């Protein structure tokens, strides 16, 4: 892990801690092996999957099965599977790079992700020895393909409201499952489904259900807006007979599995979104370099450049943030013993600690992607609306990311909810810091900002953290337990917190890069960071203001707004000029470049 010290951080701790660049893992810390794994994945996707995308979009799923098996031969299905069960047990950076590189495969990346992630990991994390022995070696090679069945027609975000039931038969040998699971990725060909059902209608539990079991069938293929390369059907369970030994985890503890798997699904989705954003930028810059209007390549117009630069700066911040989160897992797992690492539950727990980070990555990276593909279509003009251009598919494929693995709204609500829970439990000194902040603000004097690179951004970051604390502290004080009803305020707090996380990730990454390779070689990174930090700060300021106005009134409000003004006082960066510089680099390289 390069020179990164193996410190361990608490989930959400970044709000109350001062971190240094040695505390984060960045893409510049990737090893040669990481890069080789990324290259193999990329070559596989370009060489094998991309030529088949039209077939896959046409629902010719025999290719999906074939490609997954080929991926299995290369080890691309076994990264997260323990060595004892035929996997490679690679670190989380390796499996993340595989996820990022698969994003180029469009809907097939969802096929791959559903198999290796939400399909296989429940068994990796929560399977007993017999279950692991039976399923994992075959899942790692692609001999068996997996799917995950949680959602039902009447329960989406409210997953625990599932209606599917399980009842032990009289002989005590089988659970009999009845119900319908909706929108199941890989359902056309999956051999194994992780299915949630309530035992006796009340104990929410997970089961490993094989396609071949009596009473298991799938419905018709859904007609979707995007990710058409992936199969989506209903899983129908009609008196489905599931052997008792296929109960996964404990009876009535299915929510623990669902919760852990969602976390993994979320950060992996965020990584895929970063990969997609990079592709969107590449398509946009290649097209705008090529396309001439008024005898000029349209990439030489300032407005095109502004778009390319904003797309790239957002992508940089999100890339920094998702790998920062992966680094957090690695740091925490680095402290586990060999034995603990073999126990899937411990690994799941290490990831679950960063539930807040996973949720934030999920909503900011998927929104970055949606923004990037939207602008990429715009930059293609009418051609972007035509199916013969790849960007048209990217646009449609992107949209689902804001919906599945917990809508972005649900993920936003998780952030302040979990933070406050941690504060109440005394795990994070959030409320104490919010308290002392109010006193500090009374006598706060303007801070001298130095001229060194990143000093301005660090100044903005410090004050942004204070704005989050100010808003969160006030809201908690005023609404107490009823804060959960104030969803608009919670969402503001979530957005501010996520912007802080991304800002800090970009700053620390750039700082680390400057230390390692010098300022000249880190120019593009510095520009991204300057632009993102300024723009994020502006958004945080707006959210903070709206929050204060919603929470307080009269004299208290006036006092609070004046405190806020102290925190927002700064000489702003000229983002227009910086973006022109950013664009020059991208236009030259014809891709997202750091």
């Amino acid at each position, binding site marked *: 892990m390069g020179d990164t010290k193996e410190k361990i951080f608490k989930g959400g701790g970044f709000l109350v801690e001062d971190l240094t660049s040695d505390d984060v893992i960045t893409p510049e810390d990737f090893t*040669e*092996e990481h890069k*080789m*794994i990324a290259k*193999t994945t990329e070559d*596989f996707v370009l*060489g094998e999957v991309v030529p088949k995308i039209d077939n896959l979009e046409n629902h010719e799923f025999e290719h999906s099965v074939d490609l997954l098996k080929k991926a299995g031969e290369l080890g691309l299905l076994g*990264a997260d599977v323990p060595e004892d069960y035929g996997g490679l047990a*690679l670190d989380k950076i390796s499996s993340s790079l595989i996820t990022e590189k698969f994003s180029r495969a469009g809907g097939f990346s969802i096929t791959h992700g559903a198999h290796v992630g939400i399909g296989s990991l429940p068994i990796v994390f929560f399977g007993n020895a017999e279950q692991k022995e039976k399923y994992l070696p075959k899942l790692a090679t692609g001999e068996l393909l997996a799917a995950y069945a949680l959602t039902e027609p009447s329960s989406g975000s409210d997953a625990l409201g599932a209606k599917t039931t399980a009842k032990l038969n009289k002989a005590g040998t089988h659970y009999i499952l009845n119900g319908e699971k909706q929108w199941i990725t890989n359902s056309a060909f999956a051999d194994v489904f992780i299915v949630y059902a309530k035992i006796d209608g009340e104990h929410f539990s997970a089961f490993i259900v094989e396609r071949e079991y009596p009473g298991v069938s799938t419905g018709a293929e859904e007609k979707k807006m995007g990710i058409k390369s992936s199969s989506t059907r209903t899983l129908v369970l009609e008196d489905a007979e599931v052997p008792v030994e296929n109960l996964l985890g404990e009876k009535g503890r299915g929510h623990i599995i669902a919760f852990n798997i969602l976390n993994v699904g979320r950060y992996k989705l965020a990584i895929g979104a970063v990969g997609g954003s990079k592709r969107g930028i590449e398509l946009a810059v290649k097209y705008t370099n090529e396309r001439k209007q008024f005898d000029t390549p349209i990439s030489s117009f300032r407005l095109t450049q502004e778009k390319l630069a904003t797309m790239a700066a957002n992508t940089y911040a999100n890339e920094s943030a998702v790998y920062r989160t992966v680094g957090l897992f690695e740091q925490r797992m680095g402290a586990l013993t060999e034995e603990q690492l073999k126990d899937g539950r411990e690994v799941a727990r290490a990831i679950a600690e960063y539930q807040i980070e996973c949720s934030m990555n999920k909503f900011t990276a998927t929104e970055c992607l949606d923004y990037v593909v939207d602008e990429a279509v715009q930059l293609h003009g009418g051609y972007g609306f035509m199916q013969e251009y790849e960007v048209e598919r990217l646009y449609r494929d992107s949209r689902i990311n804001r919906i599945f693995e917990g809508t972005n709204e649900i993920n936003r609500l998780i952030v302040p909810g979990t933070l406050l829970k941690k504060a109440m439990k005394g795990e994070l000194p959030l409320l104490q810091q919010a308290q002392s902040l109010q006193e500090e603000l009374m006598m706060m004097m303007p801070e001298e900002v130095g001229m060194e690179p990143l000093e301005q951004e660090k100044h903005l970051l410090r004050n942004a953290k204070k704005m989050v604390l100010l808003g969160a502290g006030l809201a908690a004080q005023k609404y107490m337990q009823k804060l959960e009803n104030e969803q608009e305020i919670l969402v503001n707090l979530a957005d501010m917190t996520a912007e802080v996380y991304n800002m800090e990730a970009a700053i620390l990454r750039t700082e680390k890069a400057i230390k390692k390779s010098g300022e000249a070689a880190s120019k593009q990174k510095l520009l991204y960071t300057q632009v993102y930090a300024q723009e994020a700060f502006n958004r945080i300021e707006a959210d903070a203001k709206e929050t204060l106005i919603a929470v307080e009134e009269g004299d208290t409000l006036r006092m609070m707004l004046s405190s806020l003004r102290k925190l927002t006082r700064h000489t702003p960066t000229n983002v227009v000029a910086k973006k022109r510089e950013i664009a020059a680099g991208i236009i030259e390289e014809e891709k997202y470049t750091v």
Partner: protein
Amino acid sequence: MNIYVLLKKTFDTEEKIAVSGGVIEDDGAEFIINPYDEYAVEEAINQRDAHGGEVTVVTVGDEDSEKQLRTALAMGADKAVLINTEDDLEDGDQFTTAKVLEAFFADKEADLILAGNVAIDEASGQVGPRLASSLGISYVTTVTSLKIDGETVNIEKDVEGDVEIIETSLPLLVTCQQGLNDPRYPSLPGIMKAKKKPLEELEIDDLDLDEDDVEAKTRTTDIFLPPEKEAGRVLEGDVQDQVKELISLLKNEAKVL
């Protein structure tokens, strides 16, 4: 069977080439195994799997060439040798490389040496044949099929699109042409194993060579990019007129007729 592969790192085919001050800029450029050398690596592995023995990949390069050697190891080669000339040689040409390799092979018993047909950067195609000739062994270039039976080797060789069928014997050097095989992707287990495979680093000193022994026989006088391609022209009017105009353009403008 002792199998050796000669490998060179080249610019990634996706890389944009920029020239400044008569030098190709390679700052931050991505490098890959020369694509023709990939056929050589793949073939070496297949021959080893069929006949037993060991595959050693050799490169004359710099510190960064280790990356391409590791990739070859990850594909399945057994050993790698990096002859690092970075500190000793300023400029080299095909003579230099062949001379260095000749010294390296002086004490080796190679049954089969495989190289790429050409490197995609300078495309001379000389190093393989030069080396074979100085080692006094047979060589066949641009092979598209290689079948070994005992000492006998049956080869199909690409001759400008035609096929020449050759029978020869080991020891032998061949250069590999597109169509010979389909190089594998380095698998993830392969990548993890490659870390532990031996990679020996040598300098020309270790081969009892001096700078003078390998001094380049050629001198590069200039490097420049091909002229930028201009926009095409679409001729209009009926076919008769188009043909007339085309002939006139070919005569007067392009001056090719």
